[in-house]
């Protein structure tokens, strides 16, 4: 198979094609403007600022979506990621305010450490309750969603806390790309997605996640430690939310208890549009990232093409429902096709069993 063929048959091919197609359409239809600084005529979509801005907007969802996808693959759900994001941001801001770290490196390390630790603890809380209380994760994480945001509210006294300059400098580092171009969130998104993909496809733990999501009873009888694996996926989800919060709060320069309200739905939508199955056993970290990019691109296109932005929620809602419905139809179709292919293979083998004759007959009838 050629490289192109392999690419076209990969899990990501479809989403990539849609994203590229949409980007091309936007580039052609977006129009142009004159840059006030350089005086050059610039395409309204196909310019480095818009492309990086789109990736930046997606990155905060996408990083959380990688963690959420791992939970979804394990047949769980995590509705608390938005609240973890808010609490981690508020926690790191309060820690910096209280400890006054000296120097840029100490500030950044403290903020990162606190944000990721809060994400870890929140994930531990979710995992422990899901495993220990044996209550559906929807209920547990619905509860922690409110609890964690409430803690953020009380601890911050509803204040939007400004973060020190060193954090903004890190999150908004131009890395030599030029002024007002900030690729750090985008690069972080890529790194986290690749790490998630490696975790899921190249590690034993990742395969265990697929196994319990596909069939928890079979996994239990196979000797897998179900509770431990479930705990692990919520930890990963919490840590990705903490990391996303560190990046988001640093990028925007402040943290408040109202941050990321409702983002859990965008995160789950990203995973689902990326092909993750809410019944478990299926999903991809890279696809979750692409799903997040696609959702942000839909939002971007509504504005770039001057459509009425009040249609944004309708369009995103339709995208999710349609993607899942057609995904399920496609899965059933693929399963039937594989079954037919295996029967066809079996019929070619020399056999006198009646079942083979019947299959061959059936195949002929379809061909005719």
């Amino acid at each position: 198979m050629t490289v192109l063929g392999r690419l076209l048959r990969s899990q990501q091919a479809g989403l990539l094609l849609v994203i590229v197609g949409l980007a091309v359409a936007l580039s052609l239809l977006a129009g142009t403007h004159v840059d006030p600084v350089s005086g050059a005529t610039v395409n309204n979509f196909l310019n480095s600022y818009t492309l990086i801005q789109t990736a930046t907007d997606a990155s905060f969802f996408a990083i959380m979506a990688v963690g959420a996808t791992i939970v979804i693959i394990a047949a769980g759900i995590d509705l608390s990621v938005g609240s973890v994001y808010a609490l981690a941001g508020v926690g790191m801001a309060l820690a910096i305010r209280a400890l006054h770290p000296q120097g840029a490196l100490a500030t950044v390390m403290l903020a990162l450490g606190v944000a990721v630790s809060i994400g870890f603890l929140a994930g531990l809380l979710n995992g422990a309750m899901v495993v220990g209380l044996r209550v559906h994760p929807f209920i547990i994480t619905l509860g922690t969603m409110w609890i964690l945001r409430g803690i953020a509210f009380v601890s911050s006294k509803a204040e939007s806390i400004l973060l020190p300059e060193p954090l903004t400098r890190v999150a908004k580092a131009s890395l030599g790309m030029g002024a007002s171009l900030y690729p750090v969130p985008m690069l972080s998104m890529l790194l986290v997605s690749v790490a998630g993909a490696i975790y899921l496809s190249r590690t034993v733990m990742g395969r265990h996640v697929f196994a319990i999501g596909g069939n928890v009873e079979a996994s239990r009888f196979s000797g897998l430690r179900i509770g431990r694996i479930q705990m692990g996926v919520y930890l990963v989800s919490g840590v990705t939310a903490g990391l996303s919060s560190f990046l988001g709060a640093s990028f925007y320069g402040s943290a408040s208890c109202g941050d990321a309200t409702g983002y859990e739905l965008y995160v789950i939508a990203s995973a689902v549009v990326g092909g993750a199955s809410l019944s478990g056993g299926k999903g991809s970290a890279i696809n979750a990232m692409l799903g997040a990019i696609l959702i942000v691109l839909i939002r971007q296109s509504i504005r770039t093409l001057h459509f009425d932005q009040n249609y944004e929620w309708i369009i995103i809602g339709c995208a999710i429902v349609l993607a899942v419905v057609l995904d399920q139809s496609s899965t059933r179709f693929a399963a039937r096709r594989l079954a037919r292919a295996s029967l066809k293979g079996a019929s070619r083998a020399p056999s006198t069993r009646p079942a083979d004759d019947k299959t061959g007959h059936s195949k002929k009838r379809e061909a005719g």
Partner: protein
Amino acid sequence: MRTKLVGSAGAGATFGVAALFALAFAIAAPACNRNRAAGGAGAGDPAAPTGGAGATRTIRIAMIAKSSTNPVFLSARTGAETTAKELSAKTGVPIEVSWLTPPQEDGQIQAQRIAQAVNEGASAILVSCSDAGKVTGAIDDAVARGVPVMTFDSDAPQSKRFSFYGVDDHAIGQEVMAELAKQIDGRGRIAILAGNQNAPNLRMRVDAVKAEAAKHPGITIVGTFYHMETPQDAASEVIRVNNAYPDIRGWAMVGGWALYTKTLLTDLDPKNVKIVAVDALAPELPYVEKGLTPVLIAQSPYLWGQIGVTTVVDKIFYKKTVPTIIPMQPVRVTKDNLGSWARQLQQWGFVDVPEQYLKMP
């Protein structure tokens, strides 16, 4: 086998998404905004960011209010669009307003939309900040890229915005409390309805209410109550608090959200409770008539748009020097001026002003 199934399923999702775009375009295309339908600088039109006297290129002003579900911001939009049309005729330069307000309050989304507006060639940006901390960086980036930014209603004072238009939040908070103190004879327990806890303008009003209340030893504040800035959320919060503190004699509301519903007209007795609130939109007028809210301290949301667009055009077209702070004078609405205020609302484009108030002297 798993890999194949996953791959096929991903393709299924893709077909779904692809089909979605056809659907999305079918739904949204007829709903292109008025600017584009009017042939403004949309797809394919080069738009200059600024125009000196004699320039003929479009001036595009991106308007980013706090939330597109709040009626005061819809009135601001009407003010901005009407003024843009008037100034287009006056200057001979097409001026259009691009409405980029998020559906719900979210400082992060506002910051993203400021960046998008700059990327797409906005000539200037008008923004009411949901969270000053979140948007300050985006405002400064926009200014660094040559796009002037003006704030209205809720400021980002640490940013490089060139001007702010709005009420003095400290003064309006003080006025709300002073009026409430008069209404309850300077004694009793009161509560503060505070809206979004992250909005700097609302926090300033709340602080001023508390400072003013401290001047009245007979008044006790039972609490400051935040809520989602929707009428239903606000009204439910009021009812919950009233149930918990049945002896509350007054409400200082730093925004009018709860009074956009009718429920408090029947749930609260004007003999026992008095409300003084900021804003005076059409749904709030029955509260004044009934005496439950003897005084409303009205902002003029239409003027956010009108003065905002005028100031932007003054700066980037006429190259005038504009003040850094343009104070809005609030209007005191009582039974005495209910009719004239109702007619003013109607002139500003509010279509739901009850006929009975329009007929009042």
